[in-house]
């Protein structure tokens, strides 16, 4: 869809295009709720950062402080070194895409997209030309005379995007822009937005509660919970090396196995005693022998083998087999409260029937052990 050359958008010579955003110690309290609790992070020029968290995690509040709609009680926000903490939103020169697009219903698409240019004193003729050019970039060539109400949700989304990039802001803020779209369109728009962002080189801060969206789109993901920044890193890093049980559980699926610390080795691997035997994984923090700990292992990391428990593995029994197309999910009873969730590629000659005794194991380095229960 967005096949047109994005460089048509840029009048100025090539160079560093995206802005650098720096948030230092941002705090915001509403009554007794800490919406932002000492959040600090940096976004590099041209980077795509996703703010991920459940509702009430502070991700939207954080975006709003960058946009200028919220002023933090404490802390500092800079864009390309300029302190904008107390600058009103209309003077920040950032682009923003809202959850429900917020297109002006009484204006044509051309006027909607031309609006920020009008606010910047661009003459009418140039405004219309630039608006049409950007509409073409987002795949809406020739739609300039239509009204927002005549468009589908996905098209309105593109207009909102066009309107936010037409004045070439260094930073684009997006507040759950895909949440109002249906699943197929949402998945298509993820890639379109990502490709457009790459071509424009604009820095993006993207709020979402959809972990898959964050993993697919972002260069780095910041996970927030209860107003605090829990972990920030590349999608793979977060998925494979979550720093606590919240991140492990929020990003993708995982199995939690509570146990008692039996010991740790010099390589950082910990062994837990559980009902069915001993299991091990990489310790994320120093562990004291005899204390409670929680092991997390992803469904696709677990190996199943028919037969009795091998050495260093857990013995179990296949409780349920769920065929899900490319993969098959095995619920395996290993004597814990909840059965283990194991995901294997669906290969015809390797099906374990329900009731089969199995040996359950994983590479210790693929599992994570968190202190506490």
């Amino acid at each position: 869809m967005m096949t047109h050359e994005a460089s048509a958008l840029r009048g100025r010579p090539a160079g560093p295009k995206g802005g650098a955003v720096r948030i230092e110690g941002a705090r915001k309290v509403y009554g007794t709720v800490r919406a932002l609790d000492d959040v600090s992070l940096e976004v590099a020029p041209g980077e795509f950062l996703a703010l991920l968290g459940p509702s009430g995690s502070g991700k939207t509040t954080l975006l709003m402080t960058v946009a200028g709609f919220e002023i933090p009680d404490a802390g500092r926000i800079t864009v390309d070194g300029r302190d904008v903490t107390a600058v009103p939103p209309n003077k920040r020169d950032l682009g923003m895409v809202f959850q429900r697009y917020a297109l002006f219903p009484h204006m044509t698409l051309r006027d909607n997209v031309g609006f920020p240019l009008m606010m910047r004193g661009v003459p009418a003729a140039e405004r219309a030309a630039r608006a049409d050019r950007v509409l073409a970039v987002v795949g809406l060539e020739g739609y300039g005379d239509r009204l927002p109400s005549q468009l589908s949700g996905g098209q309105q989304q593109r207009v909102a995007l066009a309107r936010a990039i037409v004045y070439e802001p260094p930073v684009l803020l997006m507040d759950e822009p895909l949440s109002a779209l249906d699943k197929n369109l949402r998945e298509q728009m993820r890639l379109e937005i990502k490709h457009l962002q790459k071509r424009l080189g604009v820095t993006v801060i993207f709020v979402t509660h959809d972990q898959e969206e964050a993993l697919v789109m972002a260069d780095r993901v910041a996970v927030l919970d209860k107003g605090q920044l829990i972990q920030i890193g590349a999608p793979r890093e977060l998925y494979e090396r979550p720093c606590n049980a919240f991140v492990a559980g929020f990003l993708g699926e995982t199995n939690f196995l509570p146990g008692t610390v039996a010991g740790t080795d010099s390589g950082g691997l910990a062994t837990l005693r559980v009902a069915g035997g001993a299991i091990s994984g990489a310790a994320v923090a120093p562990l004291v022998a005899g204390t409670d700990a929680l092991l997390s292992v992803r469904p696709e990391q677990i190996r199943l083998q028919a037969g009795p428990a091998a050495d260093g593995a857990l013995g179990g029994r296949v409780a349920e087999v769920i065929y899900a197309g490319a993969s098959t999910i095995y619920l395996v009873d290993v004597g814990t409260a909840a059965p283990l969730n194991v995901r294997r590629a669906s290969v015809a000659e390797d099906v374990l029937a329900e009731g089969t005794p199995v040996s359950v194991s994983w590479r210790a380095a693929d599992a994570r052990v968190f202190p506490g229960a």
Partner: protein
Amino acid sequence: MASPSRSVGATTWPVTLATVLVLIFLLLPTLIVIPVSFGSQKYLQFPPEQWSLTWYRAFFADREWLAATRLSIMVAGLSTILATLVAVPATLAFARGRLMGQGLARALILAPMILPHIVVAVGMYIAFSRWNLIGTLPGFVVAHAILTLPFLFLTLSAAISKLDPSLELAAASLGAGRVAAFRYITLPLLMPAIAGGMAFAFITSLDEATVSNFLSSSTSKTLMKKMFEDIDFDVSPIVAAVSTLIIVGSLLLIGAAQLVRHASQRAPKSAATPLPVARSAMKTA
């Protein structure tokens, strides 16, 4: 939207019939003044034996009637403008801001609509006579602006509550200051409601008799005051002619407000609210 309304019309003809009967019941007494106004006798006659424009000619030849009409239109126009200038910023402040004593301010704005007009009239009479505003244009305009403000306030409040607040945030993020956001986004989207509220305020002012009765002087009286005087002294069919003119004028005004609404129907998500039922438009006869 089209299919449910079609099925309602097709399946529930008793409801339609009842609606028509109620409308006839409501409108018929009002509409009787129209044929009466075209009579030629010196008293109110229905149906008239002879049709003529006698009483319209009499109306347009009478300087006192014309002066009262002119004053009423001036007062209605100016008080509507004044009330609108107060109502638009007030409703915006109430909807978007966090004001101290907001509940009290709202009660004060709505009070003239709730209190009996005679109470308001006596109070205004006492205050206005002290300030020498009795029988003056500013006196009438201020009084009527106070009386029509509640209607504008309620119409606009309803419209603003339907306006998506993120439109104003979007405007700000795109570089618009408060004034520009109001001028290019909020005001155009509120225009249908403002037009409807103004038409309603204008008619309310034109129709107002109680307060006008107290504020009128022997030389400066509104059309309603003049009509009441006329009914008291000689009951000429001029009153019927004036009533007919007011009905026609009110309908034209409501039609104009509807046109403004339809012009903005191009944008279906605008904050168009249904026009309040123009109760006063039909009450005069």
